């Protein structure tokens, strides 16, 4: 894999991805 063909996700931290789960966003309690 050449550097300019890097996947956009490779710079993402695993926990950044995990934190995107709707279940981990409790502000859902306060919204309709």
């Amino acid at each position, binding site marked *: 894999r050449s550097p300019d063909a890097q996947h956009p996700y490779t710079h993402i*931290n695993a926990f950044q991805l995990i934190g995107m789960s709707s279940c981990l966003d409790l502000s859902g309690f306060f919204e309709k």
Partner: protein
Amino acid sequence: GCCSHRSRRPINRGFACGNMSHLADETRFTVNELEALYELFKKLSSSIIDDGSIHKEELQLALLQTPQGENLFLDRVFDLFDEKKNGVIEFDEFVHALNVFHPYAPIDDKIDFAFRLYDLRQTGFIEREEVKQMVIAILMESDVKLPDDILEEIIEKTFADADADKDGKINKEEWKVFVLRHPSLLKNMTLPYLKDVTTVFPSYIFHTEVED
């Protein structure tokens, strides 16, 4: 306190006044705020079965807009809220957990809660396999397909950053250092709504009236 309130309707609170002031003593919430949170709790706990407790399906309905399906993260959130491990979330458990999400709650409590959330098997470590399992779960939840080598690369880099002693698992101390370096990872651990929950749930006003 809530005991000075009088309601024109028959009193049907499922939570006694004494318990409210006890909860206020052990959390950041005032009795008024707890009453507002009780409105939220009633809404959540009656969405499927109106029995005064939040069932897993009700938590799922609130967070995912559907009561069906399996979700790893939902299971973890539910387990952490369900302190008594009796399969439902009661009001005091709901308040204890939300207390951690208060904007003024100590950062250490937030760090600890997030650690327990991600320590799927409760071994005291966030293991590589667990991180992989969670990444796969979020990719499924968001319908994103990622080639295996990219997935491995993400996990590799994350562990290179977080696993200071290179033993293949993240202990609590490493976790703390890691999230303090990447504070955005704790973003979900703070709910700004909790700072003025009485305005978010103004229905409180209709339920309680101060005596003349």
